Every structure is written in structure tokens, then in C-alpha cells.
């Protein structure tokens, strides 16, 4: 099928990103250069990602090691380094970290509860036109299963920096889902971000929108605006931390609002929506949970991230529809 730019499917916005906004992976890269200089224990393990091309590591260059295109080894080496007292950052794409190298992530890193930071770029549909081989629509399902692992999904440049700085204080492993190209910033005025705690971006008494990742959170905010026009007040919670899950926020949402709708750039099975549904089902309250996510299919269409997000139904319109149906049921 040929995809053409139409009103419903506009041309990819990535072709003209706002130059002032850095991508989350660029924010991460600059932070890592800072960490390398500040802390002797920090080691950057690369898998030939190209993210560090042109970076001047100066006096810390011995602690940048390109291990080539071999992700199982990458995870094992990181675990060995961490066990020997280092703080390694592992750099690869989300899909390679969580599917190709999953057993090494599970056994070498999670089982030993080692302080390895996995910088997983190209999360969700961020790889865009690179296609299904590079999309990562299962990583949140996989990583939230693993004991000891903390799972964070920054939303924009500022939250990337805040979350990584907080993650750096953790004694165990952290999975950090990053993007590829710049995505729009959240509107100004968001409350301070605390790892492990849902960020309340909007208050609302009628329904709760639970979202993670740049486009889903923005779509939730947009949907909340639309719903407000129809007299429905939606709270918007940014679940930048998928594990440990802020179950308290979900319990409050289920008890105080009439419906919960989750939004994520991920397959519906196993991700934040599943985690939310599990939590709320166990409460025994009748609050319906609905999920806006990719269905049981590989990403449809081709194009950049924002185009694919839209094309695959992770939109404010879809959220509004789910809210309307949930309230009608």
C-alpha cells in the first residue's frame, strides 16, 4: 500500500524538526559526557550506535568502549564491569536491548541486580521509516517483567535530564527508553518530576488519562482539552516510570474518576495499559479501563515517528472515543 500525505495522514513532521529542541538521546549523550568526567566509575559501552560520533571524551576516552555490533556481549560485559565496581551505561536500540539481548539483560544484569544503565534509543516507533525491524513495541512489556529493573520513559528533553539524574542515584539496573529524533516539549508549567511517581499534568474529576512517552502524553493533553469542551474533565497522568509502577496514583484514579484510559506507543499487550488494567482489576471496583495502543499487528504504514503514531491510532481522537465509549458503557 502506498502511503500518501492526506489530511488524515499528514506528511511526517520529522522532516522539519524544531532545531532548538534536542532529542532525548542527544540529551542523554551530553549528560553521559558529563557523568564520565564527574565520576571515575562511569563507563560508556557502545554498540556502534554512532550516537557518540564526534564527541570529544578528552581525559575520559579510555572509559568509552565501542564493543561493536554484538548486543549479548554488550550486556554481559556491562554486568562484569558493574560487578567489579564500575557504573556502565549500555548504548543500543530498545529492540536490540530487550529482544536480541534479553537473556543477557535478564541473567547477567537483572538477576545480579547490578547498577547498569541501559540507554535504549529508538523506543516505540521512534525509528520511524527504518521499519519494523527497528521499532520497539514490546520493550515495556518485557522490561517491566524483570525483577530489580527500573523502567523509565522520558517525555521530553527536560524530563530526560531529570530522570537520568535521578536514575543515576539508584543502586540497581535501569532501563531508559529514549527516542531518535526530537519530539515536541511538554507545555511549560509541569510539576517537578520524581522517579517512581506519576506526574500530574492536568487535574480532572471525570476520567483519568494515563500516558507514557512523548506523543502519547501530548495526545492525552490534547484529548483532555477536547473533552473539556464537551464538559468532561480529564486528569492527565504522565507515567514516565513504568516500573516501579505508581499503583497509588492508579488506585486513586480508579476510585475517584469514572474511567481510566491508557495511552502508549507500544503494543496493547503487556505494556502500561496491561499494568494499569492488572492493578485496577485487583481493586474490585467497576471503573472501566481502556487502552489506546497498537493492536496485535506490526506498525502499519511507513514514515516518520509522528506519522506512524498517528497512522497506528495513537491519537487524541482515539482517546476521546475511548473515553466517550467508556462513559457510555
Amino acid at each position, binding site marked *: 500500500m502506498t502511503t500518501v500525505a492526506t489530511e488524515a495522514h499528514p506528511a511526517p513532521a520529522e522532516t522539519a524538526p524544531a532545531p532548538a529542541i534536542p532529542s532525548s538521546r542527544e540529551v542523554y549523550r551530553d549528560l553521559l559526557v558529563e557523568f564520565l568526567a564527574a565520576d571515575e566509575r562511569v563507563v560508556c559501552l557502545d554498540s556502534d550506535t554512532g550516537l557518540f560520533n564526534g564527541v570529544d571524551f578528552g581525559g575520559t576516552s579510555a572509559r568509552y568502549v565501542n*564493543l561493536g555490533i554484538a548486543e549479548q556481549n554488550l550486556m554481559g560485559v556491562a554486568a*562484569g564491569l558493574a*560487578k567489579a565496581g564500575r557504573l556502565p551505561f549500555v548504548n543500543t536500540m530498545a529492540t536490540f536491548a530487550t529482544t536480541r539481548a534479553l537473556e543477557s539483560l535478564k541473567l547477567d544484569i537483572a538477576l545480579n541486580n547490578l547498577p547498569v544503565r541501559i540507554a535504549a534509543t529508538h523506543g516505540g516507533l521512534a525509528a520511524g521509516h527504518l521499519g519494523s525491524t527497528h521499532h520497539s513495541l514490546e520493550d515495556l512489556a518485557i522490561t517491566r517483567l524483570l525483577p530489580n529493573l527500573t523502567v523509565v520513559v522520558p517525555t521530553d528533553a527536560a524530563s530526560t535530564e531529570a530522570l537520568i539524574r535521578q536514575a543515576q542515584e539508584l543502586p540497581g539496573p535501569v532501563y531508559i527508553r529514549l527516542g531518535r529524533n526530537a519530539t515536541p516539549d511538554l507545555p511549560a508549567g509541569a510539576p517537578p518530576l520524581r522517579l517512581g511517581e506519576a506526574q500530574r499534568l492536568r487535574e480532572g474529576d471525570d476520567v483519568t488519562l494515563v500516558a507514557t512517552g512523548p506523543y502519547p502524553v501530548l495526545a492525552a493533553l490534547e484529548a483532555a482539552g477536547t473533552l473539556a469542551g464537551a464538559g468532561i474533565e480529564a486528569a492527565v497522568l504522565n507515567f514516565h516510570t513504568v516500573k516501579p509502577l505508581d499503583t497509588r496514583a492508579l488506585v486513586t484514579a480508579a476510585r475517584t474518576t469514572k474511567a481510566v484510559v491508557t495511552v502508549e506507543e507500544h503494543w496493547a499487550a503487556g505494556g502500561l495499559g496491561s499494568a494499569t488494567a492488572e492493578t485496577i482489576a485487583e481493586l474490585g471496583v467497576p471503573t472501566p479501563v481502556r487502552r489506546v495502543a497498537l493492536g496485535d499487528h506490526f506498525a502499519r504504514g511507513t514514515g516518520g515517528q509522528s506519522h506512524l503514531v498517528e497512522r497506528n491510532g495513537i491519537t487524541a481522537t482515539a482517546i476521546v472515543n475511548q473515553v466517550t465509549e467508556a462513559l457510555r458503557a
Partner: protein
Amino acid sequence: MSATPPTGSPAGSAWTGDLAPEEHALRVRELIVEMCGSAEGGHLGGSMSLVEILVTLYRSVLRIDPAAPDDPERDVLLLSKGHGAIGLYAALAERGFFPAEDLATYGRPESLFSAHPNPAVPGVEMPTGSLGHGLPLGVGFALAARLDASPRRTFVLLGDGELQEGSNWEAAMAAGSLGLGRLVAVVDRNSLQITGPTENAVALEPLADRWHSFGWNVHEVDGHDIALLRATLDGIPYDADRPTVLIARTVKGRGLPYIEGQARSHYARLGERPKKRALAILRAQSRKAAQA
């Protein structure tokens, strides 16, 4: 291609054993058989093939202190072929990391001694068992030692069938490329995997050439000759910029002639009589060797 093993060891390690090497090896074998006599049984064949390698490392080569198993400056040994755990436990007990009597709990509920290495056991570095994990971990340990400018060395014991796992070759390529001279792999080349000869499953030969082509120093040795293993391990130029592999030719089930070289020795649950018979055979062989 494969270097001749050095005959002397100029900076040779001391022998820490209070017994002759063969006596230590016998005691490790006895402990292995005892554990295979537990309710759960154990990986007999591949543990027996490792005995001299483990005894040489733990009683001579490794710079370790059983009183300080977490000493940050210790040499590290990773048993990548985690199914050799009962051999490792026996060797650690024999080296004094814990009393050999503790191994009597093996195979019972809540025992510290699980069938694959449990890092809660003093001296066990990492949990292994899924094959192909030890060498990547070893590269990490060796890289950390280099960044620390430490003389710490890392030894990884690999099974031969295990080398069919691709992650080993990712790690071997990385270690060669990084020039990790203080990383040593020892391949327990007993030539058998569960279904039979390795060469009938997925062939490993020419194994020495393969390691050599990945940038490693290669030694081929008799894996049951403690003096030769010691001399070879002592003769490695640990400061050089190439990792080293010892391809140790061994016999699966070594010590029990009726299972030696047989794939079916892989796992055994020995009843009381077979266990006593095995122990008697081990002791008789040992007496014969002492008289010879």
C-alpha cells in the same frame, strides 16, 4: 600455531595444598560422587572432567583468599559451564571457602548448593548455567581490571559444547580486539555433549585455529595433568596484549572407568550402592596411582 607449553614457570604460583595434587583431586571427585548420590543427583560427567583444572586453579594459580572471598584485588574465576557446579563447590570446599561437610545439604530443599552456581556460596562469583554467558562477563571483569590498572586476572571455564553459543564468539572477538591479556579461557574439551560427540552435533574443529583467528594465544594441554596445567597457566604472559585460551583435552566422567568418555555420564542420580561402588573405585585407583 598452538604454543608448546612452557616447561618451567619462572614466576610460578605456589602450591597451597596440604596434600599432593592427586590427593586433592581425589577428594574433589569423592565430593562430586557424594553429591550425585543425593536425592536430586548431579552433573557427573562434566564435573569429573573439570577436576584437575579446578584443583590447579584453586590450589595454585588463583590469587584468592578464602578468608576474604570478596577482596577487590582477587583473581576472578567464572564457571561458564555452570552445570559443572558440583565440581566448583567441591573445589571451593577443598580450598577452604567453607567446610566440605556443608555439601551434604546438596540436593535437599533450601540448600545453598543449587545445581548451577549460586553466588550466595562463598567463592562463587556469578550465577551461570544458561550457556554462553561466562565469557562476556569475563570480558567485563578483565576490562574493569584494566581500567583500574590492577593486576587482577579473570579466568573463564567453558564447556566445549557450550562454544556452539554465538555469544562466546562475540566475546572472544571483543577480547581479542581489546587485547585483554589478563583474560584466560579454559575450554573443558571432553568432546561430548548430551547427544554424543560434539563433532557429530555442530563441529567445533579446528578449535585451536578458531581461537587463534580471533586474536587469542592458544595452548593445547592434557586437562588431567596438573603439573602441565600449572606450568602452562603460570607461563602465560599476563601483561601481554592478547587473551589466552587453554584447550584442555579431558575425559568426560574421568575417574570412573565404566562411564569415562560416555555421553550418558552427563547427569547421574546415584543410589546408595552405585555411590559406594564409585567411591571404592576412586580410592582403589588412587592407591594404584600412589604405588606406581
